[in-house]
């Protein structure tokens, strides 16, 4: 508990440091502010391209559109919407991946037939097919969830396979000497052994499914999610630069948030075992 509080604090410190750095850059090369003329002139640091930190903060409480609710509320709702797509897909993909891994562990033939494709897919730009799949399936949040499921299921299958195979052969021999059923071996030895590997994959998949959800929203005309918000504020960037940045910040929080959720789950499941993997 105390450790969590400490890391939250250091997290805030880093964010604060970044904000300070941001303003220092603007101070050195941005637009003139009040009586101050910056020594350099970097287009990147202009108020258009890098709005002041306080302007970004202020935009959260101002209405996103005329007579609309504050931007903060809009973005939080968009974030929840996108998160739901990502999470739903993640759960489905994780179950599918784990199921496949279990099947492969028990059938060498199926493994030999299918695993090469699972492995090869790791080198294929999977996220790139997101828009195509979404248009193909006529859009909608279900299509986006399918993207997230797809992005989750590959790393989980591979990690699951490695993890389920990881127990010491002597542990498996021990179970055989007890005349245990395959099911017992699976539940008592293989799955617990696979847990660390699975959680490592879950962490990767969490991030990937959020990214997949955002990308999937782009061509599908979904306006309710973060992808839609980013597109919208990008289109009308000049009329309100801080809003795009606000949307990106919220997207970052959704990504980090999901990742942290998985880490918390990992800490609970793997309590007392070897230190959680760093990545």
């Amino acid at each position, binding site marked *: 508990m105390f450790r969590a509080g400490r890391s939250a604090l250091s997290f805030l410190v880093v964010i604060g440091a970044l904000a300070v750095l941001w303003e220092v850059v603007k101070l050195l090369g941005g637009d003139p502010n009040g009586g101050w003329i910056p020594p350099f002139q970097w287009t990147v640091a202009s108020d258009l391209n890098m709005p002041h930190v306080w302007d970004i903060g202020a935009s959260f409480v101002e209405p996103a559109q005329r007579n609309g609710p504050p931007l903060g509320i809009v973005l939080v709702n968009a974030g929840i919407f996108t998160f739901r797509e990502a999470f739903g897909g993640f759960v489905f993909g994780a179950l599918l991946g784990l199921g496949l891994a279990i099947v492969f562990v028990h059938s060498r033939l199926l493994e*030999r037939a*299918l695993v090469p494709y699972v492995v090869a897919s790791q080198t294929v730009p999977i996220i790139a097919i997101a828009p195509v799949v979404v248009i193909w399936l006529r859009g909608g949040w279900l299509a986006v969830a399918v993207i997230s499921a797809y992005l989750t299921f590959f790393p989980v299958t591979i990690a699951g396979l490695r993890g389920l195979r990881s127990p010491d052969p002597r542990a498996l021999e021990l179970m055989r000497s007890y005349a245990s059923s395959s099911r017992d071996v699976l539940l008592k030895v293989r799955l617990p052994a696979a847990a660390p590997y699975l959680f490592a994959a879950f962490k990767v998949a969490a*991030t990937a499914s959020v990214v997949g959800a955002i990308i999937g929203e782009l061509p599908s005309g979904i306006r309710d999610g973060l992808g839609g918000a*980013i597109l919208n504020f990008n289109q009308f960037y000049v009329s309100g630069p801080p809003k*795009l940045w606000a949307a990106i910040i919220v997207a970052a929080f959704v*990504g*980090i948030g999901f990742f942290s959720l998985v880490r918390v789950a990992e800490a609970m499941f793997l309590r007392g075992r070897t230190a959680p993997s760093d990545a």
Partner: protein
Amino acid sequence: MSKRFAYNAPAVLVFVGVLGLWELAVRAFGIQQFLLPPPSSIAGAFVEHFDELVTVGRNTLTEAVGGLLIGGVAALVVAFAIARWATASRALLPFAIAANSVPIIAFAPIMNNWFGVLNPLSKMMVVAVLVFFPIMINTLRGLTLVDRSSLELMRSYAATELAVFTKVRIPNALPYVFTALKVSATLSLIGAIVAEYFGGARSVLGQFIITEAAFFRFANAWAAIVVASAVSIAFFLIIVAIERVAIPWHASSRSAESS
């Protein structure tokens, strides 16, 4: 010879079988070709648009490679600096990992605004940020996760910190760097294509895919995706080849372990 054939046969059969079934199913059930293009029309689209596909593929690959170079060099420099001078490197690692879980692709519109939508540099910068963290984290790991006995050994020789760095830490880090580069190969291509989804010149893969998909010309879109996959795999294999040359001892020692 025949043993290897028997081992790989199931996978090959699946590949051929899936393609064949796909082709048959589309024709047998009379599914609209534009909805679910059979492998034959994808192949046809590939041939028909070959020149354009090569051009867009090359442009996107340039963005990917450029971004990988920028991000990779920056990552190596930062990792070296942290390993050499900051004892707080262990404390920084969690932040880098958290930063990696940010959907970096969301910065694509910003990069387009900063560097220009049509400018390949805007895509390269997205790729650079995308590959920065994996490469930096892994390099830092490789530089700092040296086993104690090796460090004690160097102490017994009264070796300077610089000697330890060059003779132990850097060689130790090389396998980690290559692991990150292999991941980054795929990542850089994905990053370039996806960044292009947020807007780009006509002559890039991402825009090609989006446009063809928007016009329901799925055969063309899938052909482009096949091209993207092929380029990605080729990029990955090139890095594997470079790894074989740069750290021959690692690959062979690993295969010895697993045998």
